[in-house]
């Protein structure tokens, strides 16, 4: 099967799963933005979306597909890295210099990816476990109503010092995510073959803009609650 | 007769040297003359029949030949092995084409990949008589320009065939995907080059040689992939194996080659051997040739009886970056196209030149009225665009007089300030930007602000192994193609013609003519390399290597090679005299002794050993250098790349002696310690009228 056996095939899988996850991030980020809007204007947008997703069949399928995407992306990343290290040969360069125009992120995608995944686990525990998982299994996983996502989020981020720490942790995560995406998006498009002499630079810019928007959406929410939290503590 | 010539010598030398020197020269020439007349009686002559030149009008010779030559049928081709040594334009194209035809090809190169042969470094372009520009070009005109450019010292039939197949080359290369430059309409673009009045040069940026070689390399790669060519990289041929046929006639049947990685000596059989090993310009140590380019294959052919023809014809390219130190390993060529807009000059005043040499002032500090645009002064009609040999000699003349402009006194200015004023910096940058950048990288000086410095350097050797019309040497079954043979450029090669010749030989000539030979060989079975002839040849090679390794002297190979280069440049260089050539021979003989008694080669013979490789090549360069001097001494005339100071006009232009030297000087090996024998192939110009080249008006 060429998707496994050929290098471009493997890269194709990486780029497709990657782009899929980026799209999810965009959706997730936009959804999170509702939290801020809700908090400012007193609306119930976030919880409405939560309810719509909840434990419905399409949400479950969506979640499974998403999980599959993450797993495939991760496994291929490990597989590719092992292969690439082997391709480098046994002797390493004694001296390596930075090449001009080469992004730092592009050479550290695996590390960045692992950081992102690590936080993802935390994130899943913090939210998904308390929301969709609780809803599905009926197990009580937190003191909040699994339907009231908004409360769960606020409960975590505005919880005094603990909230500040969480916010900061999330910010670290988001920075790693930004670096990962700043290379990932254009790399995925390049792998799919959407690039030529003129578009080469443009796609790199698009990639960065895309990463900034996606990560920015999350940032806004985190920073907002960080502000609210600090404000309430003073 | 002798008196008449002596007067001529006297008048011409008058300008060049002091009266005393002229007398000595005259005497020397006179004595030589006697010796030459004595020899005339027993000089062997090669007739057109011996050179296998087909009968009939010039334009029909090649067609006639092809119509009547013998061919090998497909089933028999499979049974025949052909060895091709070299993977440049000629070698790669020949190996690929022979394999496409069905022969089994064994191809050898000394580099790590066939793509690295030095054809790759050609910049300018390739000529063809396509007449796409509608400027009156034709096969005849390309033929005529080549003959004239070669100063009427090339064989008519060969040159005409070259012009004929030139068009096929362009078609072939385009079909292979060579990205030639194109016009906005999508059709092929042409540029003009020295020595022609039409635009017939096809080019691919400044990398035409690279693109053409990669085209041939891709065709070769395809055949290697199919298993029709067996490729041996990092192998160097060290001898040719000769085996007698049933009539007792020796034929080339294989080679002995050294695996450069393991140092192992190996044997290879072939029904025929084709040598495409390039030129011997590196005899001069400093040249525009690649470091590994060498003349050893030619010398191996020569030692087995192949004639070495016109060894003294070496082309000196006028626009190279000057030498900057003793450690210098090679000279870099700047494209000839620079002379289209650049103006060449030296200071008028000697004191200005001295200041330049001392580094006190720069070229731009010298006012316009104190500049001597010597090419424009001497050659008003052609100005800076005179042919290569003329421009080179003029630069040497100025530098010899002390007007050189860099620290070594061996450089002249190539100035673009006028072009920048006239066209604007942008236009100049567009045309020559990459060359300017290359210059700046090497010299660390901005040529937009200060004039470039250039000096002539050895670039190409027109001489080489003698071949007949079939490109077969005087040894049966041994063929020689590309720069390695002598055939098409006469005494001087025009720009963009080397690529044309290499590919013509490899794609369109040899694959035909070799069949005329091989058709008789279909009954010859593949021979075992265990035959005594192979063993004997291998033993000779091993003995030579052992001899070299045993010297264990004090000097490195390069130090001796540099010394040889200096001898060549000083005494067999741009301006030669009988005296300088005799000095050269003496010095080379002494150097040969020095080499064989005092060279030091570290390491082992049976492993990777660069120094041993270089020593083996140098041992042959020494012989070639000597042969060049002998040939130059024999050729008492000035023509093309060969300039004898005794033979020049009042104005210092080359003076041919058509009545005496209109022949190819073929040198036959007679033994390690005896002088070579001269054999002549007269050049009777049947179809073209000979004229004196004139670039003044």
């Amino acid at each position: 099967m060429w998707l496994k056996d050929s290098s471009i095939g493997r890269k194709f899988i990486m780029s497709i799963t990657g782009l899929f996850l980026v799209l999810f991030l965009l959706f997730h980020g936009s959804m999170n933005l509702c939290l801020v809007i809700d908090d400012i204007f007193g609306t119930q947008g976030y919880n409405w979306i939560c309810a719509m997703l909840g434990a419905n069949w399409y949400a479950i399928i969506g979640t499974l597909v998403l999980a599959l995407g993450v797993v495939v992306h991760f496994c291929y990343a490990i597989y590719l890295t092992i292969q690439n290290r082997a391709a480098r040969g046994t002797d390493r360069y004694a001296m390596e210099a930075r090449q001009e125009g080469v992004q730092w992120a592009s050479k550290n995608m695996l590390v960045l990816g692992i950081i992102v995944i690590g936080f993802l686990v935390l994130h899943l525990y913090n939210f998904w476990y308390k929301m969709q998982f609780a809803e599905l299994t009926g197990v009580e996983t937190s003191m909040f109503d699994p339907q009231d996502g908004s409360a769960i989020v606020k409960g975590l981020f505005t919880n005094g010092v603990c909230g500040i720490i969480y916010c900061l942790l999330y910010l670290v995560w988001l920075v790693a995510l930004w670096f990962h995406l700043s290379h990932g998006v254009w790399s995925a498009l390049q792998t799919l073959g959407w690039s030529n002499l003129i578009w080469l630079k443009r796609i790199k810019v698009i990639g960065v803009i895309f990463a900034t928007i996606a990560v920015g959406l999350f940032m806004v929410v985190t920073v907002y609650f960080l502000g609210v939290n600090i404000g309430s503590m003073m | 007769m002798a008196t008449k010539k002596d007067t001529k010598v006297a008048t011409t030398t008058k300008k060049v040297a002091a009266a005393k020197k002229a007398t000595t020269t005259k005497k020397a020439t006179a004595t030589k003359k006697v010796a030459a007349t004595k020899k005339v009686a027993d000089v062997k002559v090669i007739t057109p029949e011996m050179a296998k030149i087909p009968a009939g009008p010039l334009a029909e010779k090649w067609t006639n030949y092809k119509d009547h030559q013998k061919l090998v049928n497909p089933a028999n081709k499979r049974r025949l092995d052909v060895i091709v040594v070299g993977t440049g334009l000629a070698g790669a194209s020949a190996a690929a084409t022979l394999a496409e035809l069905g022969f089994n090809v064994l191809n050898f190169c000394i580099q790590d990949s066939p793509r690295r042969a030095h054809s790759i470094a050609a910049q300018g372009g390739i000529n063809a008589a396509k007449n796409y520009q509608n400027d009156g070009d034709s096969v005849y005109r390309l033929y005529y320009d080549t003959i004239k450019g070669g100063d009427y010292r090339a064989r008519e039939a060969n040159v005409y065939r070259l012009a004929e197949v030139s068009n096929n080359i362009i078609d072939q290369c385009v079909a292979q995907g060579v990205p030639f430059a194109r016009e906005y309409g999508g059709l092929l673009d042409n540029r003009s080059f020295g020595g022609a009045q039409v635009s017939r040069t096809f080019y691919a940026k400044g990398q035409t040689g690279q693109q053409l070689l990669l085209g041939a390399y891709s065709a070769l790669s395809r055949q290697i992939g199919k298993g029709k060519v067996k490729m041996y990289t990092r192998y160097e041929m060290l001898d040719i194996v000769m085996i007698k046929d049933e009539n007792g006639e020796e034929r080339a049947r294989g080679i002995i080659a050294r695996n450069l990685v393991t140092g192992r000596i190996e044997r290879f059989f072939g029904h025929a051997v084709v040598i495409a090993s390039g030129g011997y310009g590196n005899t001069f140590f400093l040249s525009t040739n690649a470091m590994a380019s060498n003349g050893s294959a030619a010398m191996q052919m020569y030692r087995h009886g192949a004639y070495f023809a016109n060894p003294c014809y070496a082309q000196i390219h006028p626009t190279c970056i000057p030498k900057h130190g003793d450690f210098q390993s090679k000279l870099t060529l700047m494209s000839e196209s620079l002379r289209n807009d650049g103006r060449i000059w030296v200071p008028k005043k000697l004191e200005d030149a001295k200041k330049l040499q001392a580094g006190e002032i720069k070229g731009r500090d010298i006012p316009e009225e104190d500049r001597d645009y010597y090419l424009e002064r001497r050659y008003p009609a052609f100005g800076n665009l005179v042919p290569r040999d003329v421009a080179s000699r003029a630069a040497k003349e100025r530098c010899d007089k002390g007007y050189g402009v860099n620290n070594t006194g061996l450089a002249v200015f190539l100035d673009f300030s006028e072009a920048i004023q006239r066209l604007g910096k942008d236009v100049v940058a567009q045309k020559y930007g990459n060359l300017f950048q290359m210059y700046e990288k090497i010299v660390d000086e901005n040529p937009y602000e200060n004039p470039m410095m250039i000096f002539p350097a050895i670039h190409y050797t027109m001489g080489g192994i003698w071949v007949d019309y079939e490109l077969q040497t005087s040894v049966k079954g041994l063929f020689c193609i590309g720069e390695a043979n002598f055939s098409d450029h006469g005494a001087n090669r025009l720009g963009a013609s080397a690529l044309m010749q290499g590919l013509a030989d490899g794609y369109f000539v040899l694959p035909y003519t070799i069949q005329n030979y091989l058709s008789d060989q279909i009954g010859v079975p593949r021979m075992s390399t265990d035959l005594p002839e192979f063993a004997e040849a291998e033993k000779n090679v091993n003995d030579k290597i052992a001899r070299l390794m045993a010297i264990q002297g004090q000097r490195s190979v390069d130090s001796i090679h540099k010394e040889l280069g200096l001898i060549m440049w000083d005494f067999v260089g741009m301006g030669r005299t009988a005296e300088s050539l005799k000095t050269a021979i003496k010095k080379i003989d002494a150097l040969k002794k020095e080499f064989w008694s005092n060279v030091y080669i570290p390491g082992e013979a049976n492993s990777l050993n660069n120094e041993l490789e270089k020593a083996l090549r140098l041992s042959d360069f020494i012989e070639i250098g000597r042969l060049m001097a002998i040939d130059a001494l024999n050729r008492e005339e000035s023509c093309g790349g060969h300039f004898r100071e005794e033979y020049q006009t009042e104005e210092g232009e080359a003076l041919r002696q058509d009545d005496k030297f209109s022949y190819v000087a073929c040198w036959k090996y007679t033994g390690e310690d005896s002088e070579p024998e001269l054999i002549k192939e007269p050049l009777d110009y049947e179809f073209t009228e000979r004229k004196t080249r004139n670039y003044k008006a």
Partner: protein
Amino acid sequence: MDSYINIKVRVWRQAGPKAQGHFETYELKHIFQGASFLEMIDILNEQLIAEKKDPIAFDHDCREGICGMCSMYVNGHPHGPDSAITTCQLHMRHFHDGETITVEPWRSRAFPVIKDLMVDRQAYDKIMQAGGFVSVNTGGVPDANAIAIPKPVADEAMDAASCIGCGACAAACKNGSAMLFVSAKVSQLALLPQGKIEAAKRAKAMVAKMDELGFGNCTNTGACAAECPKSVSLANIARLNREFLCAKFQD
């Protein structure tokens, strides 16, 4: 202005493909900055020969940046710290007095070391043999002007074709990937009508050979193009991806 410098050169010495390599440091005095890097190595070798030691084996030939033979990894860069040049075009003016210069061979599984700084790059030839050509025999081809090719297309093909096959791309790549090399040839031929006919076949064959030979997977770091002495563009890699994916999806 160029002047004379004293330097130390730290060179990788390895007796053979299977031998254990190590660094050795040599001192060089009075090196003219106008000398090329390889001329500096020549001087060092002359020095070693004078001391009856084994000179450093390295690949080099044309010394004008076109044959692709020279291959040194100098101070952490393939072909050294200057841009868009080969090692032979690197000059000593890029180094300062008292500097220690580290020189290593290309390091990639597909380029095993032969000796010292010399590596075996036959893998590139094998990729070319798998499909880096247009399948035409000599003779019987149409007139060169029979097919018009737009100038921008021809120019882009030319830029891709300027690859010299030196191996700097794979040497620079942290993944040991040969994608820039392969894509340059695939691009050149896919752009031109002559090569388009077998473009799909070519892309598949060359990529399969590249993978088989043990080159790594491209992760688009761009180090290859940054270090390429001929500035071959990353856009070629995108074109190769496109050609390859289209070919596979058509199957």
